[in-house]
């Protein structure tokens, strides 16, 4: 450790961005497109397998009186079902499996990313943007399929003076179109910032500890910070998954009931 700090020559011993590097494990190229199985892909697979295992094997016994794991799965199920019903309406129940998958995938990706050496899938803008864009496109398509041109009424609030209407409609359209951006950046930035902060404090532990003697005693402070930040990151991981899911529900509500 000490030699590492010395070699860095006074610079920061830990590169906080290194954890976000995507590197191929099995290079795959299909028609000029890089489809390599990377560390990111590996952790996506781990996330998906963990979610499926959690939701499938915990209810294997189909117990009338649930055990611990089954109880946990049922609680999550009820929680998401209630959220979909309350935020998106009763007719949104058919989209429940998608919201459930989305919430669980993001939650597990966030939580698994907190393990040391794990790659955080959701700390990449392209992943969160892909999820947000799927929601945006899906919601827009559902809106037009269900309501046809009437779906555009979403952009025309009632009771606005004719003079202001063009301006208001423009603002509504912009806010609608920028949804996938805010939706994806919120999750991405939270995960990225949290992991960078953790890495920076870890760097402090190493560089202060490298001073020896008093330094090792002083390194306890950033170490304690890491413990606290890890707890905070656990909260953020769950909260951001919830925020992503509930925003999806609200967008879905707009598509199902476009009247302002």
């Amino acid at each position, binding site marked *: *450790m000490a030699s590492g700090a010395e070699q860095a020559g006074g610079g920061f011993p830990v*590169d906080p961005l290194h954890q976000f590097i995507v590197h191929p494990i099995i290079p795959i190229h299909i028609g000029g*497109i*890089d489809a390599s199985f990377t560390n990111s892909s590996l952790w996506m697979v781990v996330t998906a397998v963990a979610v499926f295992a959690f939701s499938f094997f915990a209810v294997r016994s189909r*117990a009338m009186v649930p055990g611990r794991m089954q109880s946990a799965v049922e609680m999550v199920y009820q929680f998401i079902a209630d959220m979909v019903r309350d935020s998106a309406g009763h007719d949104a129940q058919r989209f429940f*499996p998608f919201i459930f998958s989305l919430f669980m995938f993001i939650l597990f990706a966030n939580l698994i990313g907190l393990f040391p050496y794990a790659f955080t899938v959701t700390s990449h803008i392209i992943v969160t943007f892909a999820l947000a864009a799927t929601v945006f496109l899906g919601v827009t398509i559902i809106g037009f399929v269900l309501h046809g041109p009437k779906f555009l009424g979403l952009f025309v609030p009632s009771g606005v003076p004719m003079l202001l209407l063009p301006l208001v409609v423009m603002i509504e359209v912009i806010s609608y179109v920028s949804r996938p951006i805010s939706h994806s950046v919120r999750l991405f930035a939270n995960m990225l910032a949290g992991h960078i902060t953790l890495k920076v404090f870890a760097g402090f532990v190493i560089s202060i500890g490298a001073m020896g003697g008093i330094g090792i005693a002083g390194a306890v402070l950033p170490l304690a910070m890491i413990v606290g930040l890890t707890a905070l990151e656990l909260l953020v991981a769950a909260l951001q998954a919830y925020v992503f899911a509930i925003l999806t529900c609200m967008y879905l509500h707009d598509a199902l009931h476009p009247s302002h």
Partner: protein
Amino acid sequence: MANEAHTDVFQEVHVPEAGHETGFPPFNAETFASQLIWLAITFGLLYMLLSRVALPRIATVLEERRDRIADDLDQAAQSKAKTDEAIAAYEAALADARAKAHEIAQKTRDELTAETDRQRHEIESELSDKATAAEAEIQASKTAALANVAGVATEVTSAIMSSLLGEDSDKAAVEKAVAASLRRGDA
């Protein structure tokens, strides 16, 4: 795995420039295609498996439990209704038995009273019969006695008359006088 982890630490500590070679990793467009493809594969498969297999099973379990609870509550309500019914039947039977017991007691009492009355009447009539017979006997004795009285009185009168007058008196006149005297005495 452990080896790989060690390499990671080694790289992070010794080669701080490695991360900067490609710029800010999340904005490295070279990795976008692979991430999108694998996200589509993993998330797509997860969605399929959850919506086709896992979620319907959880829903079934929850529904079965809800049904079971509703069933049990129904059964409890039915049992309660049955209990209420049984209690009502028991109370009716009890009231019935009470009424019957009362009736039997009343009947017995009535019967006993009737029997007593009958016996008393019997005894009374017997007694009154006896009294009547006795009265008749007394009357007969009295009549006989009275008849004798007339005879005796006539004889005594005749005897007195004959001793006083010294001659046999007129028997018919004596009888007539005695009878008149007796009638006067009766009145």
